[in-house]
């Protein structure tokens, strides 16, 4: 998102009818009418978005197990953050150890799952390039490629659980037919569970939002650029490298950033339905850890602190996006 999108627009010149400033009472009535328009949404926004964000910030400094009443919440200052992010010296070995090594492991899992981002982007771009060609029947393919994205999340997860079934799943049956004697156990193998989730994510996402954004980007490239390149005798690779790619740079950057941001918040359904975070925590993401901490172990304060850490990461990425947006696009040229 570029900053022009989000800065509030300067208020425009009011129409002639209202340009002459009305008197105090009329103006008040106008304000009240404006608030009446705003109110239904504003009340809900305050109650379910803005105040909860503030409440979560407060809660992250407390220890409270949710089963007890409010007033038994303990104010613990930064303790939750120290527990999550801090290190201490192990008495026996004298080495530095993380206070919560699961947090770091789950952060690593989350980052690992993001290996799917560049692969997915490359495939989305390839798909968009194909779908942008003036071919007969291309509309059919556009729809087909998009369908996995809208398919109900849980049903997709159930379907892929079946595809990954070690004995009877289509994937392992296919691998056996191709002569692989011992195909992986996928979701029940700590080494393969994450790649399995990534693969499913690719199937869901390649033809989805990113592909549509790339298509829009491609359609915005002026045709003259290609004509000039063609007149200069540029082949398809040269045109792709020196016309398409630089012209798509803003789109690519936008997709990259939003994919990373949503990557920190993704895979919940896949993880919960397919692996439950296992085997041995190998598919527990940060998001899933936050969920479990709050709603399985009822440590609301600690969970809120973890959520704030996630928020901080996303916030930093968004800031980076704003600051770096232009320059990174230039680098890609």
């Amino acid at each position, binding site marked *: 998102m570029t900053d022009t999108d989000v800065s*509030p627009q300067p208020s*425009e010149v009011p*129409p*002639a*009818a209202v340009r002459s400033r009305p008197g105090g009472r009329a103006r008040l009535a106008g*304000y009240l*009418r*404006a608030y009446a*328009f*705003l109110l*239904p*949404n*504003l009340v809900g*926004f305050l*109650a*379910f*978005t*803005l*105040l*909860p*964000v503030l*409440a*979560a910030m407060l809660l992250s400094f407390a220890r409270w197990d949710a089963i007890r009443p409010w007033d038994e919440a303990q104010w613990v200052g930064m303790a939750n953050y120290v527990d999550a992010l801090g290190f201490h010296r192990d008495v026996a070995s004298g080495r530095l150890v993380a206070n919560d090594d699961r947090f770091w492991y789950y952060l690593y899992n989350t980052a690992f799952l993001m290996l799917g981002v560049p692969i997915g982007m490359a495939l989305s771009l*390839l798909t968009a390039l*194909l779908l942008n060609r003036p*071919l007969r029947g*291309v509309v059919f393919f556009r729809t*087909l*490629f*998009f*369908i996995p*994205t*809208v*398919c*109900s*999340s*849980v*049903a997709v997860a*159930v*379907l892929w659980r*079946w*595809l990954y079934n070690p004995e009877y799943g289509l994937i392992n049956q*296919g691998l056996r037919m191709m002569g692989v004697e011992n195909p992986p156990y996928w979701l029940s193998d700590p080494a393969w569970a994450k790649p399995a989730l990534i693969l499913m994510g690719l*199937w869901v996402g390649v033809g989805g*939002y990113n592909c*549509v*954004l790339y298509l*829009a980007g491609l359609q915005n490239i002026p045709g003259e650029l290609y004509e000039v390149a063609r007149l200069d005798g540029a082949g398809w690779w040269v045109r792709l490298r020196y016309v398409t790619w630089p012209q798509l740079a803003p789109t690519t950057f*936008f997709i990259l950033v939003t994919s990373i*941001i949503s990557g920190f*918040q993704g895979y919940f*359904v896949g993880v*919960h339905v397919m692996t439950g975070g296992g085997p041995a925590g190998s598919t527990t993401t940060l998001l899933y850890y*936050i*969920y479990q901490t*709050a709603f399985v172990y009822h440590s609301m304060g600690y969970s*809120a602190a973890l959520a704030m850490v996630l*928020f901080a990461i*996303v*916030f930093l990425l968004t800031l980076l996006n704003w600051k770096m947006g232009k320059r990174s696009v230039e680098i890609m040229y």
Partner: protein
Amino acid sequence: MLRRKRLSDFISYLLLLAGGGTMLLPLLWMVSTSLKTPEATMSYPPELLPRRQETWVDPATGRELPVFWASVQGRRAKVVKLRFYPGRVLVRVVEPSDLAGQQLSLALRQREGTRFVPTLTPVKHISFRWHNYADAWHAMRLDRPWMAFEIGPIKFGGFHLRDAFLAFYLNSVIVTTVVTLGCVLTSSLAGYAFARLHFPGRDVLFLGYLATLMVPHVVTMIPVFILLRTLGLIDTYSALILPVMFSAYGTFMLRQFFLSVPRDLEDAARLDGCGHWSVYRHVVMPLSRPALAALGTFIFLWTWNSFMWPLIVMNSTEKMPLMLGLYSFMGPHGAEWHLLMAASVMVMVPVIVVFLLGQRYFVQGIMLTGMKG
């Protein structure tokens, strides 16, 4: 030149077909499994077309026996197995009719070139087991009435639905409809206020809306849960509806769109004496139909597919939306893949239909805002 174009078109089609096949195959596999017998789901090699082994009912015992192909006196015959001996099997011929009734003993494996292959191969026919769908639909029973409530002195006993899936569907339809309509309505009103009206604190409030756009949902999850629990709304429709109905996203998106609506028409309407409500109702809303439809389609799909929030706030089977219902169906039926796939198909079909109907708006919506799911 033309030849090169033909070649590149050919390669494009090849790639599109490969990609399209990859997209389609899992879905086809799902439909295929949903029409198979439990035994057929485990067959090797995998079969895309559901086939089922022919059976033969022994008139003497009334037992139903699977039928196999075998070679009898150099002819192909259908046989059933009667008894096993070490390395051999006693079979009875069922067809052709002139051999029927004969019993003979066959080696379990026979030599074919250098390999040994089984003597008997199953007789299979393509057969769709449609009643998997009915089985899945009826598999979960509701033991409590649907829509029963008690508010003060008003008591309502609810409806006695037999099948949980019916309740899941109705719950999803109700919740999704209310959320979609409510969200489009409140967002468009607020968007109009932000785009067109002047009032103190407007820009600060709008910044507040913007700032929350990047807050991950998981941050507000706990406080909203506690709020709903305090209000006694956990495990009610309200818990599913209220937190998602007032979308900051929708407000932002519609405000941006309203700003692009030409002001001349509005000014004309204002000069004719229309108030803001009429301008909103009769000028801005009709002109914004594509944006409203895009937002509506988004919200519909998000709400229909949402899983995490229902998982947190809903406990009673009769109040669960479809996604959560499918998940709770998976618990006791986790290994009955034919039923699970039938249930998954039933869950997916409505969204796919809505997507196909609203596709145009949906794609427009993505391009309009660069919005992501």
